[in-house]
Every structure is written in C-alpha cells, then in structure tokens.
C-alpha cells in the first residue's frame, strides 16, 4: 500500500511532465513550423488588419451580404462562447424563433421554400457555411442590393462552393465570409 502510494505520486508527476507538457509542446513546435497558418487559426489579414478566420463564421445582417445561419454563440458568432441553442424539438421557443426567421426571409424571395439550415442554429454557433440551396435562395436579394446581375452573384457563389470532400464525405457547402469578402472586392456596394 505505502509502496504503491509512493509510486502513484512519482508516476503522476513524471507522466504529467511527459504527456501534459512535453507532448503538447512538441506538437506545437512541429505544427508552427510545418503548418503555421492552420495552427494559428486560418486567419484572414486584409490591408494590415484582421477581418476574421476562414473557419469561423460571422454574422451578416446588411441586405447586400449573404447571411449566415442564426447563431446561439453569445450574442451571435462569438468564438469566446461557442454553443448551440440546445432548444428541444418540442420547445415553443424553437418554433417561434424559426417562424420569425421565416417571416424575415420569405419576402425577399417569395416563391422559393427556405432551406432548413438557413433558419436553424448550428451546433457550434460558429458554422462558417451555409448549404448551396441557402446561398441560391439569397441570390435575388443580394444581386438587387448590389446592383449586379443574378448571374454575377451566382458566379461568386460558385467560386466559394465546396463539394463533398473527395466527392462523397460530408455535405456541399458555401463559406459565407469568404463569399462576402469576394463580393466586396469584386462588386463593392455604393
């Protein structure tokens, strides 16, 4: 008993140094050399300032932008408070929130049904993507606001649409922040 207690103490200390400190520092060292961009958050610098990360979604409400999904992370897309809504399927609050989103979105494209992902919150609250259907749904509004043709808007969407990885893994998706940055560069709003 006493012998095993002593071993417990030394073993805890020794393995903490090995697996709790040396291991993550070795990974950090190698990662910073080989993959510095990814290891530091896939950040997007623009004209000397940081505008976001390719992997982290941002909120958009101006009609000239493609909108992201609703978010339950903090006050919306707050990476220091990642979270889903955790609303249950029979919670009235969920039904009401979706109904409010529908009411806001439907008039901008009255004849197309709204894709489910555009009115639901993601698990992280930071989802950088919307489905291609959700992008397509927003094209008439964005094109009108920016004074460009739907064709031009559709081309921009296509540039930022990723298919399934290797053709079959996951789902097709459109990165909203990348798409909007591209629009601002190619077709600035007046």
């Amino acid at each position, binding site marked *: 008993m006493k012998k095993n207690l*002593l071993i*417990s103490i030394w*073993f805890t200390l*020794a393995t*903490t140094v*090995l*697996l*709790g*400190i040396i291991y*993550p520092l*070795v*990974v*950090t060292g*190698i*990662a910073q050399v080989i*993959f510095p961009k*990814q*290891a530091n*958050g896939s950040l997007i610098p623009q004209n000397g300032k*940081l*505008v976001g*990360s390719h*992997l*982290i979604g*941002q*909120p958009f409400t101006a009609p000239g*932008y493609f909108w992201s*999904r609703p978010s339950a992370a903090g*006050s*919306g897309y707050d*990476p220091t408070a*990642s*979270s*889903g*809504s*955790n*609303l*249950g*399927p*029979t919670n009235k609050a*969920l*039904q009401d929130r*979706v109904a409010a989103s529908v009411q806001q979105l439907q008039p901008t494209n009255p004849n197309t049904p709204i*894709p*489910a*992902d555009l*009115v*639901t*919150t*993601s*698990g*992280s*609250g*930071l989802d950088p*993507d919307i*489905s*291609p259907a959700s992008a397509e749904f927003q094209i008439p509004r964005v094109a009108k606001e920016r004074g460009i043709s739907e064709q031009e808007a559709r081309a921009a969407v296509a540039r930022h649409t990723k298919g399934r990885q290797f053709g*079959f*893994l996951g*789902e097709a998706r459109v990165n909203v922040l990348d798409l909007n940055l591209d629009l601002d560069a190619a077709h600035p709003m007046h």
Partner: protein
Amino acid sequence: MTANGWLQIALFFVVLLAVTKPLGVFMARVFAGEKTFLDPVLRPIERLLYRTTGIDEKYEMDWKEYAVSMLLFSAVSMLVLYLIERVQGLKWMPWNPQHFANVEAHLAFNTAASFTTNTNWQNYGGENTMSYFTQMAGLAYHNFVSAGVGLALAIAIIRGIARKESKTIGNFWVDVTRAMLWVLAPACLVIALIFVSQGTTQNLRPYDTAKLVNPQTISTTDSNGKTTTQTVTDQVIAQGPVASQEAIKILGTNGGGFVNANSAHPFENPNPLTNFMQIVMILSLGSGLTYTLGRMTGSQRHGWAVWAAMALLCLAGVTIIYAMEAHGNPLLHGIDQHASAMQPGGNMEGKEVRFGIANTALFATATTDASCGAVNGMHDSFTPLGGMIPMVNIMIGEVIFGGVGAGLYGIVVFIVLAVFIAGLMVGRTPEYLGKKIEAYDVKMAMLTVLIFCLIVLGLTAVSIVSPFGTGSISNPGPHGLSQILYAYTSMAGNNGSAFAGLNGNTPWYNVSGAFDMLFGRFFMVIPVLALAGNLARKKIVPESSGTFPVTTPLFTFLLISVILIVSALTFFPALSLGPILEHLLMHAGKVF
C-alpha cells in the same frame, strides 16, 4: 436519407473492420511484453520512467493489489488536477494569456472527478474558463491517464479469462505505462499533426481580435424591461493548443472538448475528413480489443462473435438516429427539410452544414456506443427518438465497442450473464472459454448492472422532484425529464455527452454528478477486477458436447438479447415518460 449518407456509413464499418486486426494484434503484443516496432524509441523512456518512480516491471499483482494501485493512482492524479484548477489564475502559473481566474471549488471538484473517470462531463466552456496550462497538463493529461487505466483494466480481465490457476493478473503500473506510451501517445502525435494540417489550431498565443465585415447592432432587454442597444464591431477569436488535446480526446474516448461546442466547433473538427477520422478513432481501440480478447484467450472466433454483436447493435443505432433526424421536425413550418444535392435538409437545429445529417447521426452513435461523449451536433436538439438512441446506448453500458478498455470489460460482464442464462436454459453448469462460471462470478457481474441502474435512476428521481433539480431544466415538457435522465446516465456511464441545455453548473449537479461519475467508474471496476481475479484462479475444464459454444452466430444473438433485455427492463419505464412520450406528443402537434 440519401444514398451518399449510407455510403459514408458503410465506409465507416469497412474501415473499422479493417483496423480491428492490426490494432488487436499490436495491443496483444504490447501487453504481453513482446517486441514491437516502437521499442527502440520507447523502451529507454519506459525504463527511465520505472527507475525514477520505483516500479519493478517483473512484479505481478493479485486483483486486490491491482485494484488498490489503480485507486491510489486515480486519487492522486485527481487531487493534482483539482489543485491545478484551483490555482490556475495565480500570477506565477504559466500559459494563461487570457488571465482566467481560479476555478470555483465545486466546479473544480466536478471537473476533476469528470476527467479522472474518463467521463469528461463539462459544466464549463473551455474557451472562457480554463488556462492553456490547465488544458494541457491537467485535462489533456487525464485524457491519457483515464484511457490508459481503462486499457489496463481490460487487459487485466482478459488475463483473468486466459490464465489458469493463477493468483495474479499482471502489474498495474506496467500495463498503464505501456498503454499510454505504446498505444496512445505515438498515435496521438501523428493524428494531432494531421488535424493541424486540416485547420485545427495548435498555439499558445492570446486570443485574436478581428474587425467584423458587417458590424452588428444588438438590442438586449434586461430583467427590468429596459432595452439597451450596442454595436458590436469586433470578433474575438479563441486560440489554443487544440489539436494535441483533440487527438487524445477522441482516441482515448474521453470526449471533453477544448472548447464548449466540442467537435461541432470548426477549430476542433474543421472538415468532413477530420470528422470521419474522429468517428473511426472513437471506436477503433474498442474494436481492436475484441481481437485482442480472441488472441489472448486463444479463441479468435470468439473475438469475432463479440465483434459481430457490437457491429449489429451499432448499425441498429445509427439507422434509427439517421432516419429520425433526416425526417426532420414536423413542428417547424414554412421551411424545406428535404435532403437534396443542394442541402442536407432534415432536423438541422444544432447541426453543422459541413457534416449534415448522416455524419452527425454516425458521430452521435459512435460517441455513445463508446464512453466518449464528444459531440459534433447538439443532442438536446435532436428529435425525441433520435436523441433517445444515444441515451439507450449509454444505458446498455457502452458495450458497443465501447470506451477504451471500459467497453471490453463491460461486454465481459454481459458475456458472463449470457453464458449463465444459456446454462440455466439447458440445465448445465455454464462455462466460458473453459472456465466454470459459478455463483461468485454471476454475483459480481450482476453487481455492476445493479449499481449502474441504482445510481442513474436514484439520482434522476431525486432531481425530478426537487426544486434544485428541476430548476436547471431548459426545455419544458417531457424533454425536461429527458435532460435530467440523460445527465445522470451520461455521468454514471462515464460518457460525458449531454442534453446540454440543462444547467449543470449548480452546486447540486456539480456535487451529485461528481459522485455519480466516481461511483459509475470505480464501483463498476472493483467487481470487474474481482471477477478477473476469480476467473484467473480457476482450472480449465475441457470442452464437452454440453458446452455452450461462444463462437457461433447463436451466441452473438444470445449476447445481443441479454444486453437489450437487461437494459430494457431497467430503463424502459423512465424512457417512456421522456423521449417516447415526447415523440408521440410532437406528432400530435404539441409544443411546450
């Protein structure tokens, strides 16, 4: 449901099957002390570790000393984790760029119990609570340790089955060292770097502040009804050494996220490839252990018969979740929930677009088949039956491949019961791989089953009739019961996933949950080790025509039946008041 979704699910089973034998053989060699390709690097580290800590690698322990060593190590390392959390905010503590304060006592206790028991239930958000030092040296370290301990225990019970007339079942310190150094650490080093290449972060820098492309005006109404409007122009991007923790979190079936949103967060799980890797990794070691079981006991076909039972239960689980989630939520009107090439469709609340329905259903199945508890979508927002399956997976003891080690020793308990019941049916003394199964063995097996249901249903019952229990419910109606039932099931099962709307960070849930986790781990493990010790002592009886074979499809079927009947009898009444009732009411159009 889509053809492409099923293709991914099929691929998952193929890959899992493919890794089973190599991993199983490798683990059998590692724990038998045979040569492996990693020896030139790891043997010197191992010897140094034994020399500095006073371990004699030739020494063998009986089951009691094995259990005591395991308990002492768990107690000491849990205490160290508690202390790290309690002092992380002091000025001299390293790697705390966001200046997070010391963790409160009851939360620190809950978290220490949680990570020591391989549960990784989290009543905090990592990105706003824990310093990088706590994450690395406290939490990620325990991911290695608790998985290593689980693996050691599995090997101990396999030795109990394999050895004859032996008083000893191995050396705990050697087993746990070899589990961490040979099985876990090298794989994690490689996998962490693959994760980084895909976008998972790995740094020690302070959080970055980005300027929002489209600044937001946000109105909030306080409790007095006063509305304040503020403009948000910045987005603070949380950073940290995520990848190194992510690898062991998944491979060790720990499941405790670096950040609150866990594997739904793009920094933890950036794309479909990392997601697929994570799902396979969660079940890989548990799957491999069935091969190790076959190899070490000299009956490879028995190993595969067990594997088949697990695979069938896994397939049943993912089929139900996928069907339910793909069907969507009938209470949401005016939206298109049909899957197509353009959109995942279905019940997308709490799910990420890049994973869609099939990959979220598969992840939820894997994470609860094992005692992992990582999530890539929020189970609380699943449809009632889609959310019930994860709960059921935990209730049947996480024996579908199962947590690292824990799944194997859990399934051995059910095998003992299955063999016992088969013996009763034909009126012969039950045998398992040449060992007579006697009253003591069945008592120990039943003890683990009874302890589990007692703590889960007991604590749920107390919480559901007490204001301190119901006060934490966030979803009214039957879903509220589901939230509490899920919480105690998950903690006792050392899973760690949650119906996360439940506010667990209260003194009641922190403290009762900590005991739920500690009992769920250690009160299960002690009878299992007693069973191992008792089996090891026995003589081998030669197989006769009356022996019930444990290598046939009939055995696989019997094993599945025993697992389902035991858990159904125990938990069906509670489930019928929670998710099943909610399902019926949802289709009747009722909201709460």
